[in-house]
């Protein structure tokens, strides 16, 4: 769908190139500047937590994009994408250890390339097995593979290090730019660089014959067969290439954390990729990027604030699949016809009108969940309950009434406002179509 958006733009001249490139340049600028917004002036250092979060987001963006090469582009639901990520991570640890011992003269900047190649290798091995089938059978083979490899990772010690995982030190002393990579901000910029390289690579992949054939096999594999392509080979190649990028992400994971354990190959990580791709929007190229940012924020950020974060994640999924099946980018793209008709301004007021009850419902829901979970779990742990920055008395009736009122009242208000919004929206799309 991003292609159609692009096709509508002028296609020649330097201005056109600038227009085509602006999302990339903006993304690069934002990712370069972002860590400095959280600079800790009091202590004169980077916020380590933010840099970690951003690094995690960066590698997850690569991972989610590579997953979407399978799900979005080829229509393959893979549960073993984490296996490619994790095994490449394990390999990277061994590469780094070898490089640190002077046996592998590869500069740090190119280690992710090695990781990608090992990801490609594992992609070929597992792709050969899984890609014999399609659809549900494919998904189930990958489910088998992920369980197999996860259990094996805790069992075999020479490669996986058992449950303790394998460790490394990223200060291998070989670098193209003379960097030590001791500070995590340096690693962050390495991740940004590889993220951009991988994203560009995957973007161009969508335009190659292979990328196009993957689309064709997704949409109608029988027809693709009639045209003379072997869908199985297409699936296999697509799987292997996506393995390369998953491997790059896995390599960056190993470099960032300097340890890889069996969690890196396990199914929850693959499920995360699925969520990122879906919530961001699997039908667009950039969707998974949004999804990766959102899910990482939830997982590493919200989970530090509330132990009930899984409830919020669950509710988010359910809300997304019910109300926004095309994901976040899908919602954004639906505005395109209205924007083209120059009517976007008319949506501002309706948006604000649903935003307010939306926030009230959110407030009420968070309040109810936190109060309940504090009542049954948190209180026994001897914690104090803080909601929205203030201490709350669990036995007072005020917080309960306020939360419930917000939830119910806000919910009622929201349904009314959303009906209004839908009217306005339908009207506008009608006008835009004309």
């Amino acid at each position, binding site marked *: 769908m991003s292609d159609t958006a692009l096709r509508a733009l002028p296609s020649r001249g330097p201005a056109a190139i600038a227009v085509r490139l602006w999302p990339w340049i903006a993304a690069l600028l934002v990712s370069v500047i972002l860590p400095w917004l959280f600079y800790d002036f009091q202590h004169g250092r980077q916020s380590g937590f933010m840099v970690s979060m951003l690094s995690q987001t960066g590698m997850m963006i690569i991972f989610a994009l590579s997953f979407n090469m399978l799900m979005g582009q080829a229509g393959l639901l893979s549960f073993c994408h984490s296996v490619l990520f994790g095994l490449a991570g394990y390999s990277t640890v061994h590469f780094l250890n070898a490089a640190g011992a002077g046996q592998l003269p590869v500069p740090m900047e190119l280690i992710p390339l090695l990781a990608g190649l090992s990801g490609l290798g594992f992609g070929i091995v597992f792709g050969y097995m899984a890609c*014999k089938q399609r659809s549900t059978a494919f998904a189930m083979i990958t489910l088998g593979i992920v369980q197999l490899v996860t259990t094996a990772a805790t069992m075999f010690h020479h490669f996986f290090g058992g449950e303790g995982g394998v460790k490394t030190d990223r200060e291998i002393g070989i670098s193209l730019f003379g960097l030590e990579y001791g500070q995590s901000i340096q690693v962050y910029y390495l991740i940004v660089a590889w993220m951009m390289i991988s994203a560009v690579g995957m973007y161009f992949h969508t335009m190659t014959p292979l990328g196009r054939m993957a689309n064709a096999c997704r949409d109608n594999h029988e027809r693709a067969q009639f045209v003379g392509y072997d869908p199985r080979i297409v699936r296999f190649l697509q799987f292997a290439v996506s393995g390369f990028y998953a491997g790059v992400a896995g390599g960056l994971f190993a470099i960032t954390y300097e340890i890889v354990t069996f969690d890196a190959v396990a199914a929850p990580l693959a499920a995360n990729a699925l969520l990122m791709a879906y919530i961001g929007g699997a039908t667009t190229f950039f969707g998974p990027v949004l999804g990766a940012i959102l899910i990482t924020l939830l997982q590493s950020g919200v989970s530090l604030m509330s132990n009930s974060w899984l409830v919020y994640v669950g509710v988010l999924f359910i809300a997304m699949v019910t109300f926004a099946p095309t994901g976040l980018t899908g919602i954004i793209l639906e505005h395109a016809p209205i924007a083209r008709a120059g009517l976007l301004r008319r949506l501002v007021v309706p948006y604000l009108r649903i935003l307010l009850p939306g926030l009230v419902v959110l407030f009420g829901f968070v309040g109810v969940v936190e109060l309940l979970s504090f009542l049954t779990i948190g209180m026994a742990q001897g914690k104090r309950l803080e909601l929205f920055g203030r201490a709350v008395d669990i036995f007072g009736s005020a917080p309960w009434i306020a939360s419930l009122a917000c939830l119910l009242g806000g919910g009622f208000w929201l349904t009314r406002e959303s009906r209004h919004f839908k009217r306005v929206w339908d009207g506008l799309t009608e006008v835009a179509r004309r």
Partner: protein
Amino acid sequence: MQIGLISLLDGLVYGMLLFMLASGLTLILSMMGVLNFAHASVYMLGAYFAYELSRWVGFWPALIIAPLLCGAIGAAIEVWGLRRVHHNGHIAELLFTFGLVFIIGRAVQMAWGMLPMPYRVPASLDFPLFSLYGENFPAYRGFMLLISALMLLTIWLLLKKTRIGLIIQAALTHPSMVSALGHDVPSVFTIVFAGGSLLAGLAGVIAGNYLTTESSMADAMGPIVFVVVIFGGLGSLAGCFIASILMGMVQTFSVVMEWSFADMLRPLGISVSADDLLGEILTISISRIGPLVPYVLLIVILLFRPRGLMGTRET
């Protein structure tokens, strides 16, 4: 020999338990195409409900009420949730059930806490049924076998002898045709989903005290049930039954196998040491990798027979 006979019984009990869980999932997956990850969560709910009910009204009423509650929850999920998501595609449905897994998991922790529940076998069934080579066979295991056999019989009768059963059977293999013939397929879906959840709940009730009732029990059961369903093949309850029993047997018999691949190579004059990854794989004994066997079997069967053991159509 003595180990063989006892293992056979153990495998049968475990296999029947798997079947109880898997039969519901087979129906749901074959008819609706939903990879229902929340199935094991409903199983967990069944166990918790049964524990709570058995504290107030005793085990026997709980045996009836808890599965019915689970069935009602299943129906609610289908009517208010899945039905709305259905037109957004299978991955949307899958993610919907993912979301449910998280919510149910946390809700159970909030309601009952994090510790295992003291959900026990009722006193009236807590005696050894018979003794085999000095090892007791608890009456409760016999009871589990009985319940699952009764359940098998009931499902079979329902599917073969009733009108709704015929429609379900038809919808298993040709859902669009059934709809074209004018049957109310959505309400059939609801019935199937509720029925599947009821069976999962029943499995939870009778497994919760045989195994343990705790908030991680859903995660432990989830993957293996999928393996059983896919291995057995979509659209076939018989395949599901055979797969369940087979997986039960595999799990129990692999435990007693002490040999490794290296032992098989030894007569050929090849000796292997566990010094590298390959050596490690070859020298590990079968009993240590028992739980891996179902996944290997799954991969192997799907490679050569994508419809599964007795599946009636391509997955």
